[in-house]
């Protein structure tokens, strides 16, 4: 028979540390004091990392700091993942904390929900976002709602990582950008970094977050920034300043956008791969655009967006996902609702076409710098 008092003792404290699990709080606090956002980063020793290495390092840093953190997914154990994002974790932390799973996305997410409710901090990998759908019910009906339907008596602090986006000749089963399917769900947070630095800082913040976080990794950015010029040589992260990633623990807070280029003529709202496409389009058109990398789609940094649009009076929204009911529709609505009196031109969206992602016509589908540039010219010349 259960003795309620015993359970109440366990559940009245932090349920997520209800079992005998060690969190090295001293290190944690020290690092938090050392690093917030901004100046702190510059003083930290850093390494040249690809986005893959940065993601791997974020998980490793957290696994070393907090034994509740575990990592698993299809091919994610011994082999270290098809993209190598979990390479060596099994060797370093043991098979009970880094392991392969059966090919079952509902099993991966469903078991992660149970583990997170128990008090672990699972970091589950879905091999491609395109394969997420069997686990979608567990994400939408279970992970996202556990806190609200139990009045916070049970919580679900888990991270589900998945590579998204195209540009790798992956066709319609390895190229999708389903972010809007997550931002539409109450109870989830949705994050999408565009570079190694943000990837590490945001992933650590996501692992520490008390709620389920969908962590989308633009796979075309894993090895280097990509501006959409697919016919030009690939640039590695080692030659890009955002490939400089601080060692050890630091966070990039969820819910904060990054103004990556200040400008006066038009605001460009972008995230993931399209951030670099936008940068290329701005450079090639010579338009003085303000580019915002949203980084977190939900919660959305509305403040940064409206401050910028009120200044520029014009707005272009770019994303790789299909246009209709894409996240750009939400962004457009937000801007219209909050900046209507400041707008000097209609908002324009540049997005993937409403077709499945083609392999043969990939570069027609992909919203590259020419399409973004055309939109910029259209919006800044509108009178």
């Amino acid at each position, binding site marked *: *028979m*259960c003795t309620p008092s015993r359970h109440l003792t366990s559940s009245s404290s932090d349920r997520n540390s209800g079992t*005998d699990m060690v969190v090295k709080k001293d290190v944690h606090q020290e690092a938090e004091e050392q690093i917030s956002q901004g100046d702190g980063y510059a003083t930290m020793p850093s390494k040249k990392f690809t986005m893959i290495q940065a993601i791997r390092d974020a998980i490793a840093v957290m696994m070393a700091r907090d034994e509740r953190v575990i990592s698993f997914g299809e091919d994610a154990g011994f082999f270290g993942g098809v993209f190598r994002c979990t390479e060596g974790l099994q060797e370093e932390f043991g098979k009970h904390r880094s392991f392969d799973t059966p090919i079952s996305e*509902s099993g991966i997410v469903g078991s992660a929900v149970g583990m997170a*409710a*128990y008090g672990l901090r699972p970091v589950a990998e879905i091999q491609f976002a395109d394969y997420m759908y069997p686990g979608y019910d567990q994400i939408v*009906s279970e992970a996202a709602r556990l806190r609200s339907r139990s009045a916070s008596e049970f*919580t679900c602090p888990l991270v589900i990582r998945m590579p998204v986006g195209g540009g790798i000749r992956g066709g319609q089963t390895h190229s999708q950008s389903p972010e809007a399917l997550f931002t539409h769900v109450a109870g989830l947070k949705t994050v999408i970094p565009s570079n190694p630095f943000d990837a590490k800082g945001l992933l650590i913040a996501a692992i520490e977050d008390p709620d389920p976080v969908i962590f989308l990794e633009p796979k075309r950015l894993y090895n280097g920034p990509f501006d959409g010029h697919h016919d030009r040589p690939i640039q590695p992260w080692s030659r890009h300043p955002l490939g400089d990633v601080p060692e050890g623990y630091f966070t990039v807070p969820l819910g904060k956008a990054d103004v990556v280029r200040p400008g006066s003529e038009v605001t460009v709202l972008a995230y993931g791969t399209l951030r670099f496409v936008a940068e290329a389009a701005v450079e090639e058109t010579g338009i003085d655009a303000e580019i915002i990398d949203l980084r977190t789609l939900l919660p959305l940094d509305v*403040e940064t967006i409206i401050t910028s649009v009120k200044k520029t009076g014009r707005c272009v929204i770019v994303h790789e996902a299909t246009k209709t009911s894409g996240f750009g529709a939400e962004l457009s609505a937000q801007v219209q609702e909050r900046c209507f009196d400041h707008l000097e031109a209609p908002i324009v969206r540049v997005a993937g076409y409403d077709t499945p992602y083609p392999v043969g016509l990939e570069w027609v589908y992909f919203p590259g710098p020419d399409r973004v540039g055309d939109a910029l010219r259209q919006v800044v010349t509108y009178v």
Partner: protein
Amino acid sequence: MAQIELKLHVPEPAARPGEDPDFSFLTLPPVDEARRPAINAAASHTYDLATAMIRVLDDDGSIGGHWDPELDAETKRAALRHMIVTRLLEEQFMLLQRQGKAAFAMASLGEEAVAVSAAMAVDVDSPGYGPGLDMHFPTYRQGGILVANNHSLVEMTCQVLSNAGDRLKGAQLPVLHSVPECGFFSISGNLATQLIQAVGWAMAGAIQNNRIVGVGWTGEGATAENDFHSALVFSSVYQPPAIINVVNNQWAISSFQGIAGGTNASFAQRGVGYGIATLRVDGNDLLAGYAATRWADERARSGHGPTLIEWVTYRAASHSSSDDPSKYRPAEAAKAWPLGDPIDRLTEHLVVIGDMTRNDVEELTSESRHLVDATVAEAEAIGTLNSGPAMSPVEMFRHVYAEPPPHLIEQRQELGY
């Protein structure tokens, strides 16, 4: 070779409304037939039990066979009381729904032994067990776990009434409880999704070397869901301390168990395909249910892996307050169910062994009825779905995230709060 006509086979139950109940498909083996393997037996040494039926209580109230859990009389009386209280309380829940005081209701009429025996057998306070919590991941038909684990009946009723006393603040449909301190996980309401969560809970226990169990529950109908398969695959692969319970109460709303594949193989046999220990138990035999769960519980806690248990029982109730069973099965079917009524069977046993007289049982029932009536009165005094202090709209926004993000704060403020 002669060719037979090629056509779609759509299984039909043995009897439909207007016909005599027909349970000839169910074989009732003698109580001493089912072996009791050692708790550390290889899974393959349990496979014959996937088609057998573990029974302890015989028709005449005597007990026999290899699975007698040897409970003392006090425990048996407590079990009888838990079943009676569960039945009477859920009867009131259905009534409250009909009176418009609750949005919805469900009952476990006729299958009370399942939840009560399992709750009593998962011994969450066994000495020597490590930190962490045992957890049931129940369906809506295991409210008996809360009764058996001595949860406040008033609190249960407040949840059903969605009143100010509802600890879930109206977030969840009636009877989809969440009571961590009684090892009762938040019920989702989606079918079979929580089996794999129970397995994940058990995996977490194994990862942390905590000697706990994760106990999953599904009806036989929802074994058709892919999450059932996930739960069994993960159980097979990682050998976590999990118990997967399939309550075969013959009916999934209006679909008989054949629509879930039950006419071709027992539900327990699905465990065999995954290499998991499997037991099939007389679900209306409280002692057998206790013994089977105890076996699986000890097996799991001592590191010998997961068990699938099929409980053979009968849903004497409607599926919920929203359906009328007389439209899809014979009206007298529950009374003809060969495994009888769980309360009557345990009562018979307690009378036969001389522990209780029929008067004692009547007195117990009468006391239980008073308790339930007082419970409902107390809960109704706090309010019902349509009366009493209104819940603050703030509650709707409160538990979506640990900290409300700006857009939710804005929406709450738009509402005036």
